[in-house]
């Protein structure tokens, strides 16, 4: 087992949960969600640990509804050639949010956006938490959740109807429209919808 786990226990006490060696030989350590930001910062900054490289951020939802969702951080110390996997458990019924790792690793930016997009887990303090793979007006939910059917929630006809009804201006974000100073030229109703953050959202299917 990776010696970092002992160091973590010595520093953070009961914020560190169980730890185990996975089938690929890497150590997995569970951390309490409310202390996650501190733990990640410590792992990055402490000289003896120096997990300066973030390999990946992802989430896991089990088929068993009793098991909580997990957010997984794959960390690597390039100096010591050591890997560590940090996991946070989030109860289905609870608050599906954790602190963002972007202040520590800029590489977490798109990875966390993807987890948000695919699982609906929000990252507090993320500078730009928007959907990334699905479009911004996507209304069917979060595709990698187990309660999301493989073919999507809406029928194919409904999906086509929504695509045709989508507002072409919705392809630009408010931020982008403000660069072009195109905002003032938009029709009043569209301006109002944009300001409400709807960006051409179509109504729920009947």
């Amino acid at each position: 087992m990776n010696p970092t786990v002992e160091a973590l226990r010595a520093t953070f006490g009961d914020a560190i949960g169980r730890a185990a060696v996975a089938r690929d030989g890497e150590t997995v350590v569970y951390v309490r969600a409310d202390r996650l930001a501190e733990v990640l910062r410590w792992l990055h900054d402490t000289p003896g640990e120096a997990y300066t490289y973030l390999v990946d951020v992802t989430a896991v939802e089990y088929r068993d509804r009793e098991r909580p969702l997990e957010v997984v951080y794959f960390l690597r110390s390039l100096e010591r050639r050591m890997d560590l996997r940090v996991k946070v458990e989030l109860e289905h019924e609870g608050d599906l949010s954790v602190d963002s790792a972007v202040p520590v690793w800029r590489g977490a930016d798109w990875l966390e956006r993807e987890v948000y997009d695919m699982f609906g887990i929000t990252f507090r303090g993320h500078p730009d938490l928007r959907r990334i793979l699905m479009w911004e007006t996507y209304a069917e939910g979060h595709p990698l959740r187990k309660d999301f059917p493989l073919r999507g929630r809406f029928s194919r006809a409904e999906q086509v109807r929504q695509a045709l009804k989508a507002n072409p201006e919705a392809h630009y974000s408010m931020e982008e429209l403000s660069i072009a100073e195109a905002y003032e030229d938009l029709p009043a109703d569209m301006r109002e919808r944009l300001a409400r953050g709807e960006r051409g959202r179509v109504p729920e299917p009947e």
Partner: protein
Amino acid sequence: MSRRTVEFTLATPGLDPQGRPVRTPLTGVRDDTADAGTVAVEPDFRGEHLLVNIGPQHPATHGVLRLVVELDGETVVRVIPHIGYLHSGFEKLGEYRHYNQIIPLTDRTDYLAPMANNVGVALAAEKLMGIEITPRCKVLRVIACEMSRIISHLVWLGTTSIDLGAFTPFLWAFQERERIYDLQEMWTGARLTTSLTRVGGLMADVPEGFVEGLRHFTRTFPRTLAEIDRVLTRSAVWAGRTQGIGVMTAEEAINYSLSGPMLRASGVPYDVRKDKPYLDYDTYDFEVPVGEHGDVYDRYLVRLEECHQANRILAQALDRLPDGPINVDDPRVILPPKSRAMSDMEAMIYHFKQVMEGIRAPVGEAYVGIENPKGELGNYFVSDGSAKPVRWRIRPPAFINLSALPKMAEGHLLSDLIAINASVDIVMGEVDR
């Protein structure tokens, strides 16, 4: 309204006394003493920002990538990338498939190096199940990975040189790539949808004539690389368009989680093949090229040298290719030959169970990262003991490398944005998955 004269230096950059290319900024220089050779332009446009939409259907974005760019004159102030146009939900699909049925999906992620993706996902599944593959299979998989590295880097070299105005290297690179594709087709029957690996082995052994064909390739390929090197490396145009462009320092590259040639061009000597060896890469003799400036030019040098090194590995792999089976001897994992399945009761049962139920993986999780041409390709399986993974995650190197594009491009010229975007070596099938 006062007119002003602006002097533009339009000549291509030359070389300074030390032989290093000089990069002349293409910015206007205020010159009130107008004389011959200066261009008079109409009023001051400073302060007005322009919104330019590039893509998603644009050849210079190398796929369906859309970039919304805020420009101040010709200078990029902000880049806002939009991706997802090729999102296919592979990870979701994988949760509904057996491990072997996932392999065809990986052909379509990084479609410029399908065989390497096949190897990556098979290694992760084998790690999860604790399967040790045969020596011949290991060497053949190394051959598959290095062939993929060469074709992927050749596509990168060709398309990037076209982006920056050099047409000839494109033709040379694609001609060489075609020779690898012929071999790949000979082995797998396909140029793109190779589906080469199986959990515990390979779909097929190499056919007769393959080893000779590849050996001929490894002997003749360095000549083309030398030609490309001669045309590009010391070209003032090439150096002027690429040196000092899109610089990432070593700390930034690490902080942005860059991997592969992007990370190494910034001077970080991390290569999964050396540092976490898989497929016995530690027994091959090869070098890992590392850049020092982290600009587009260094990324070019790193990739060019990686082609040489991949060629070396191919030659060594051909020399050591052992005889023996390509598949593990385990009827629960590998399908029995069709003739036995039709005549032998036990073989038929195994055949039926594998096709209908798939291979059961033990409870647990496994992550295997391999050094793909684009960077570290990770495959992460979480299993609950059934024949289908609970979660299949691809760590997409191109996606993570692309996320540093705004950081690299902001402050450069619009034409440099094209060079920087090309230098990331994205493949949208993998970025969007």
